[in-house]
């Protein structure tokens, strides 16, 4: 079965088909009136979060959804907020002293049985909708405590229609050796998680993957994007050999970890890691990073019921600073909105969320949230070499506003006699075309740039990277995108500020020499990608890279550019 290989490697293992588990009763009884009230409140909150989830699905997919599909989502909202469910659940909590989980499981079970027993075929089929909304509320209810994540045997390959952020948040992946999904693309959530963990993955396999059952023997070839279900012995033997060869190769790459990334003609290149928290640091250093080019802070805000306090955030940044062994850590201020939502922060549904209320736009509007984060980062800045980076900057005014809020945060800390690094460096993501084009103007305002190629590519080419129908147009080797990147690097050098890259392109072996030739010296990527990129750097010269860059800039299409780069890599 053919899919898209999005995370390299070969794995052989047993299938675990990820389905939302059937909920069991907990048997917990509530003790008093206060617990009863709290439990009812918890239920109401879960319902409103569930409605918000559906609203965001509607908003994200508005353009490609058929009327029919939208109607299904509208019906789901009505079912979620059905007063009969609310009344029955409340009654069970109040009179039966059940917790919200058990009350809901019983109420949903009753309705499912009622509908399943109907004569009408259409109504019988509705029992699936009721189960589905029940599961959705249950997931949200259980999040705030008793998460029942599936337990995996060693060598498990997770098979799913798609893997959502909430699935992976709950998943213990230590025994997972592969992911295969029916839907998805190179930039979907499954891909990002698999790559960052170095686990082979094939996405977009289609409905055929739905025939897999638990414990089927699966071979997953993440290099070529192929999935075998219960293959013949010779195919297993063949892939066992391939797998060994691949592992030897990656072990060789791992051996590179203590070698500096210096080109054969002596140019020192900085390879740093993209991480989501202190837990990722071990893996990053194991792969040979020198510092963190991107600390995403969204994880700190996810999987909870309210915004983290300044102290909670401080602990998070402090742990990263302490774990970074005095290497530079670039902290990106929160980038929510777009496809990332927080259950407790109700963002209204938007027609074009990627062009909407997100990242720095939210921070400049909700100064209270921004201030809390900035103060926490500043406080942590005495424990390591932290830098602050603002995402989604489109003009100089946003930089000035953000800097003035940083100044306010510093003043508050000073007034309260709290220590911070007064000279903390400030930078911006270059991911909006206007920022790339005006890099000469913006360079005067900040200490560094970091090029975010995923969004820069999506905005420059007007290609929604969540839309699978046009994924072939999402092309970082488009000459227009390459010229923007080159201009940003050039302007950074001209104004003597640092320029790095933290998008997907930084980890693409095909792009490495081209970017070196453009003058890029700071690459930040998922830890697992570092050895391969380092290997390219130490085996090549800047001179060769410059020649490649010159030739590429004379080519008129990405087909030619990609073919040329593939040839040059041989």
């Amino acid at each position, binding site marked *: 079965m053919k899919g898209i290989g999005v995370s390299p490697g070969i794995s052989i293992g047993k299938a675990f088909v990820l389905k939302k588990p059937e909920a069991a009763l907990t048997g917990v009884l509530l003790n008093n009136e206060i617990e009863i009230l709290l439990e009812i409140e918890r239920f109401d909150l879960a319902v409103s979060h569930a409605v918000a989830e559906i609203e965001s699905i509607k908003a994200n997919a508005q353009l490609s959804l058929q009327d029919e599909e939208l109607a299904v989502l*509208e019906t789901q909202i*009505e079912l979620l907020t*059905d007063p009969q469910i609310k009344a029955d659940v409340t009654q069970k909590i109040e009179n039966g002293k059940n917790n919200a989980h058990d009350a809901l499981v019983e109420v949903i079970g009753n309705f499912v049985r009622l*509908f399943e027993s*109907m004569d009408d075929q259409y109504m019988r089929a509705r029992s699936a*909708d009721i189960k589905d909304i029940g599961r959705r509320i249950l997931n949200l209810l259980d999040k705030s405590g008793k998460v029942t994540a599936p337990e995996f045997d060693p060598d498990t390959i997770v098979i799913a229609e798609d893997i959502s952020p909430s699935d992976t948040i709950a998943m213990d992946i230590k025994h997972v050796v592969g992911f295969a999904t029916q839907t998805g693309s190179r930039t979907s959530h499954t891909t990002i998680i698999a790559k960052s963990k170095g686990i082979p993955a094939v996405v977009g396999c289609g409905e055929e993957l739905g025939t897999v059952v638990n414990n089927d023997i699966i071979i997953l070839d993440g290099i070529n994007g192929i999935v075998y279900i219960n293959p013949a012995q010779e195919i297993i033997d063949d892939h066992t050999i391939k797998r060994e060869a691949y592992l030897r190769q990656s072990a060789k790459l791992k051996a590179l970890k203590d070698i500096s990334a210096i080109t054969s003609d002596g140019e020192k290149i900085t390879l740093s890691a993209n991480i989501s928290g202190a837990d990722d640091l071990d893996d990053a250093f194991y792969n040979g990073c020198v510092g963190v080019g991107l600390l995403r802070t969204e994880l700190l805000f996810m999987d909870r019921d309210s915004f983290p306090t300044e102290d909670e955030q401080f602990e998070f940044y402090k742990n990263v600073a302490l774990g970074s062994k005095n290497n530079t850590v670039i902290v990106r201020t929160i980038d929510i909105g777009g496809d990332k939502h927080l259950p407790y922060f109700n963002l209204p549904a938007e027609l074009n969320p990627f062009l909407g209320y997100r990242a720095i736009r939210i921070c400049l509007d909700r100064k209270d949230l921004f201030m809390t984060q900035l103060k926490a980062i500043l406080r942590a800045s005495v424990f390591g070499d932290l830098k602050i980076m603002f995402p989604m900057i489109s003009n100089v005014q946003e930089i000035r506003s953000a800097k003035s809020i940083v100044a306010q945060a510093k003043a508050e800390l000073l007034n309260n006699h709290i220590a911070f690094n007064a000279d903390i460096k400030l930078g911006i993501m270059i991911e909006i075309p206007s920022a790339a084009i005006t890099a000469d103007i913006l360079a005067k305002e900040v200490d560094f740039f970091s090029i975010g190629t995923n969004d820069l590519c999506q905005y420059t080419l007007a290609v929604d990277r969540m839309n699978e129908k046009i994924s072939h147009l999402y092309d970082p080797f488009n000459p227009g995108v390459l010229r923007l990147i080159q201009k940003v690097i050039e302007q950074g050098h001209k104004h003597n500020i640092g320029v790095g890259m933290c998008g997907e392109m930084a980890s693409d072996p095909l792009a490495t020499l081209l970017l070196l030739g453009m003058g890029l010296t700071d690459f930040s990527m998922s830890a697992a990608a570092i050895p391969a990129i380092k290997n390219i750097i130490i085996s090549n010269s800047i001179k060769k890279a410059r020649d490649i860059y010159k030739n590429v800039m004379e080519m008129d299409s990405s087909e030619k550019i990609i073919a040329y780069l593939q040839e040059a890599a041989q």
Partner: protein
Amino acid sequence: MISKDYMIIAPQGIHARPATTLIRLTKNFKSAVSLKRGDKVVLLNSMLNILSMTIKGGETISVIVEGEDEANAAEAIDLFFTEQLKDL
């Protein structure tokens, strides 16, 4: 209180989509709206209760509207059962 009988003009009856529309329509009014068939009466605010009546095309049901804006509500509901339901 206003009560009126309607024959269901949608061949598929009151399935999820018209039920969604109907619930949202009645939310615009303060009046309580209920559906009655035989002895069974349900409030028109619960999708599950409406669906569980399994109202099929060609059947006749009563709609009961009661409240301060019942005249306006009854008018909107009348339009729903006589016109809009055809297209849902």
